[in-house]
């Protein structure tokens, strides 16, 4: 935490604080709910902490328009509650990482999940946070207020800066106001579970399911004492979910025991997967491996026995909890299949990138923050 904490009430005040920090040669850390301060290594050292708590409020929401504009510091819990009243939700299923990364649950902000581009299990069906981020107002590292994007779904006017802000971890600009697309809440949710399949059969089942028009909106494989447990989420209108669940179950039956669970089970189960709950409560270094989905099998084979793991996103996102004395070279395992590994909890990890990408990223960062007023984060720059 910076020596000084400020909580600006609007973009103008934030701009003054940032311009002041530039003038004084100070470095700023931006905090939303603080739920991910421990994500990707210890939070950066900074002289000034800008806390977005007073940049809240739901500024505009028209359910028929399926677009919501809020202050970046608005809590997800408030947004979720309002959307639920109108049978809508955020399509990217933002996980609450509070408990897993040294913060508290329920504090996550909309600006925070967008700045981190964090998405839950539904990412395989409806895209990542970046895909739902339509527009914003922000303060750059020059202390200037600017806007980009828009408040409608379909917009190609100017560069798509919301994409760049998503996943920039507060190193380019302070988001003050954000506009996101929202989606209808599914009427029905079912989870089809396959138990006892081998790694190969379980990952093969995920790959096959994703290659069919079943609209699978969650596909995760977990290790169990008897092989694997693989869960598939199907959502939508009742008659459609029923047909798809039957079809999927029939395909899975040759590989193990199949069980179909209801909406109440599904809600808890997938929320826990999103939060990495099965691993988060255990001590150790937590890694996130992003790989081509069909190669999840190779990753799981390489780490099983040496570490605990969860293979979400149909194999494309493998969470690995490594014991302190584990000798697994996870970056090498991910790189071997064309993916990447980030240590999200534990000592600061080096994130390797192609030199050309790193050079370009440095120039992009300097374009938004020429004075380096925003503190660096290991995973971006």
């Amino acid at each position, binding site marked *: 935490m910076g020596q000084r904490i400020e909580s600006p009430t609007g973009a103008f005040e934030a701009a003054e604080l940032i311009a002041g920090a530039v003038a004084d040669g100070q470095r700023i850390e931006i905090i939303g709910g603080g739920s991910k301060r421990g994500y990707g290594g210890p939070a950066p050292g900074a002289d000034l902490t800008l806390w977005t708590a007073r940049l809240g409020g739901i500024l505009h929401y*028209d*359910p*028929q*328009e*399926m*677009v919501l504009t809020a202050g970046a510091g608005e809590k997800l819990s408030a947004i979720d509650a309002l959307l639920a009243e109108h049978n809508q939700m955020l399509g990217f299923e933002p996980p609450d990482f509070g408990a897993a990364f040294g913060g508290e649950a329920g504090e996550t902000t909309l600006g925070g999940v967008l700045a981190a581009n964090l998405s839950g299990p539904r*990412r395989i069906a409806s895209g*990542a946070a*970046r*895909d739902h981020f339509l527009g914003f107002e922000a303060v750059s590292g020059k202390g200037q207020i*600017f*806007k*980009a994007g*828009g*408040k*409608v*779904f*379909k*917009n*190609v*006017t*100017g*560069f*798509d*800066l919301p*994409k*760049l802000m*998503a*996943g*920039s971890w507060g190193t*380019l600009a302070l988001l003050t106001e954000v506009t996101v697309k929202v989606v*209808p*809440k*599914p009427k029905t949710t079912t989870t089809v579970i396959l138990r006892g399949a081998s790694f190969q059969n379980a990952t093969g089942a995920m790959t096959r399911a*994703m*290659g069919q*028009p*079943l*609209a699978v909106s969650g596909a995760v494989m977990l290790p169990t004492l008897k092989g694997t447990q693989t869960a598939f989420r199907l959502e*939508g*209108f009742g*008659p*459609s979910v029923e*047909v*798809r669940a039957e079809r999927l179950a029939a395909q899975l039956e040759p590989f193990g025991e199949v069980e179909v669970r209801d909406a109440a089970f599904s809600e808890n189960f997938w929320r826990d997967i999103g939060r990495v709950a099965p691993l988060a409560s255990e001590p150790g270094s937590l890694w996130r491996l*992003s790989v*081509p*989905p069909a190669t999840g099998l190779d990753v799981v084979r390489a780490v099983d026995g040496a570490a605990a793991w969860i293979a979400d996103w149909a194999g494309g996102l493998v969470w690995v909890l490594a014991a302190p004395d584990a000798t697994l070279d996870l970056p090498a395992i991910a790189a071997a299949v064309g*993916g*990447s590994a*980030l240590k999200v909890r534990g000592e600061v990890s080096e994130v390797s*990138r*192609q030199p*050309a990408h790193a*050079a*370009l990223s440095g*120039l*992009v960062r*300097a374009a*938004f923050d020429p004075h380096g007023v925003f503190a660096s984060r290991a995973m971006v720059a």
Partner: protein
Amino acid sequence: MFKHPNADIAPLTAFPLARPMALTMPELDRVAISRRAEIAAALRVIAGANAVIEHEDGLRTFETDGLTAYAQMPMLAVLPQTTAEVAAILKWCGENRVKIMPRGAGTSLSGGALPLADGVLLGLGRFNRILEIDYANRCAVVQPGVTNLSITQAVQDEGFFYAPDPSSQIACSIGGNVAENSGGVHCLKYGLTTHNVLGVTLVTIDGEIVTLGGKAYDSPGYDLLGVVIGSEGLLGVVTEVIVRLTPAPECTRAALMGFPTVEGAAQCVADIMAAGIVPAGLEMMDGFAIRAAEDFVHAGYPTEAAALLIVELDGPEAECEHLLAEVQTIARNNGADTVRVAKDEAERARFWAGRKAAFPAVGRIGDYYCMDGTIPRRELPGVLARIGEMSKTYGLGVANVFHAGDGNLHPLVLYNANAPGQLEAAEAFGADILRLCVEVGGVLTGEHGVGVEKRDLMPAMFNAVDLAVQEDLKAAFDPNFLLNPGKVFPNLHRCAEAGRVHVHGGKTRFSHLPRF
């Protein structure tokens, strides 16, 4: 080396203008023009003698894109075949401060591929191979000159398709789709290009080759892929694209609904969305467009209706049946007096035939100028009413077709190009429509891009700081502004007349392409 006797005299342009350009472009680089022969020689060394086009006849192919109001021959054209050649060309041009205009199929409707008299046109037409189809990871690796539709054609037998479907999909290239972040009729459900491209190989103006994204769902570092998509050729040249493949739906059904009022149709759209239904396509036409289309293709449209909706639903058959019933109820509750569900594929095709023929149908009546703005859907009745008033003020007719689900309007302003002053009036009318889109909370362009067309309207949506931030990003990639200059940014600070999509006598540069 052969040297032309006049090579040392710097002409104003290498070639005379095909027709006068009212558009103001960046100041002409006479030094580059005077070095034309030297530049051509350098490009021949890099890409081979056959890859460089110097002759007027060869260059004429590139003089315009889908925005036919403006034409300009490039100084030179080069058609490389490998990423290494592209890198060497960009490095040479970067070091020698020579402007470069990347070009795909040249179907842009906003002048994004309009050449410059003092620049090298970099054609990517030879990058026309599908390199890999990876069904297990649901993606394909393709070269940028591959056409949009050919990707779907390559994978449809395995039950997949490439979702974005701009109306020019039989001709437009995937590289151009990446540059423009192209949409299409089905992007309401399946997303735009940006949601369906997983990675690209980008060559920078320094000649560096950078891989952005990949087959994994996300990649470390800044999402540079996200800003490169839709950057209109201003940030680099894409030489490889990884596209997402989507399982093809099992069943597709369509319904046609006629309404006595625009308000009824607009509320029907809102109610469909509010019911949690995300149609594959949701299109609206106003009375003028309905009647023009019906006269042209006899699709069986209710010609007395004030507004028509076409709703397309896809998914398992049970889902389509269930939702079709709901949609029909919603339509009747909003006063629809015609509700028809396509019995078979032939009838569904007929429903679409009218919509897809709307542009040429209007083109039979006169010249038209196609606009492309997006508004919040709730503003639709008000915006239509205002467009109607403007139509009276300008004395020009207007037909309205919309991608109603995402609020993307395509008003077609009718004029007579041979009547003095009408072209200018149509352009002024069009600009007023786009300003209105911004005024009600929308944007200047939903899918056609800014290009040169809306460049000078950018200040209607962005203030000076907003634009400066975007130009700073441009400078991070291209500090000397050599890549596709004169597009997107109104940096010339002059009251240039913006170019438009003009269609004269039903003829466009791509008259064989459907536009909708």
